[in-house]
C-alpha cells in the first residue's frame, strides 16, 4: 500500500492550523462487484482504520468503510504544537497495515 502525506500550506509556524492530507493507494473493493469474466464476487477489501499520531500521541482516529473512493483521501486539520513527527497508521480489513511518517518542521 503506497501512501502520501501532504501538509498544506508548505510553510507554517508553531500555532498555525494546517491541513494534513493523507492518501493511500488502495482498491477499496465494496464486496458487491462481480468479476466480469467469471461472475464471481470480488471480496470486500477496504481500509477500515486510520490513525494520525503526533510524537506518538493520538490526534485523530478514523473508522472508515467501503463507501470511500478508490485511492481514498482523508484530510484533517492540525494545530502545529512544535517540531516533531507525524505518523499515520492505516489498516485494511484483511489486516494489511502501513505506517507513514512526515516530519513537522515549523519555521519561526
Amino acid at each position, binding site marked *: 500500500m503506497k501512501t502520501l502525506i501532504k501538509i498544506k500550506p508548505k510553510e507554517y509556524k508553531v500555532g498555525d492550523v494546517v*491541513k494534513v492530507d493523507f492518501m493511500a493507494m488502495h482498491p477499496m473493493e465494496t464486496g*458487491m462487484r462481480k468479476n466480469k469474466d467469471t461472475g464471481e464476487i470480488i471480496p470486500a477489501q477496504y481500509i477500515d482504520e486510520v490513525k494520525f499520531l503526533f510524537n506518538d500521541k*493520538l490526534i485523530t482516529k478514523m473508522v472508515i468503510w467501503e463507501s*470511500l473512493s478508490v485511492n481514498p483521501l482523508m484530510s484533517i486539520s*492540525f494545530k502545529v504544537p512544535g517540531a516533531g513527527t507525524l505518523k499515520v497508521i492505516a489498516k485494511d480489513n484483511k489486516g494489511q497495515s502501513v505506517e507513514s511518517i512526515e516530519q513537522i518542521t515549523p519555521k519561526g
Partner: protein
Amino acid sequence: MERRSFLKGFGVVAACATLLPHVANAADEAKKVAGPNEMNYENAVAAITGGKPLTPSAKVVIVAPEIAENGAVVPVKVTVQSPMSDKDYVKAIHVLASKNGNVRCANVYLTPANGEAYFGTRVKLGGTQDVVAIAEMSDGTFLSAKQNVKVTIGGCG
C-alpha cells in the same frame, strides 16, 4: 489534478454500479449482491447517537457538489464551528451517504489537538442522495447538516 482525478474515477465507475441495490432496475434486482456491511440510514444514525436527538445546525457546514458527474469520486468536506478547546470541542464527525447499501462512510474521532474541526474526503455514491454529516459535540449533543448530491452518470444507478 482535475483531469487526473477524473481518469482515476473513470476506471472505478463499475465499482459503484452495485453500491445502491435498491434503486437498481428490475433486472439488476434479481442478481443484487448484499454488501458485507449493509446498514440503512435509520440504524446507522441510531448507532451513532444512541437514541439522542439529532439537531440540524448551521454550525455544521458540509460542502459537496450539487451535481456530481461521477458518483465514484464525490469530494465531501465537513467543517464544524467550534473553539476546539479542552472543554468545548467536537468529539467526532460522522459522514453518511443516506442511500448507499452501507450508509456509513467515515467516523472521525477528533481531539482538541486538531485545532479546527475539519474532515475532507472523497466518497462513492450509488445514486442521487443526501450526504449527511453528524457532529458529536463534547457536551453530548449531536448536530447535523446535509447536502443533496445529484449523480448524473448512468453507470451508478
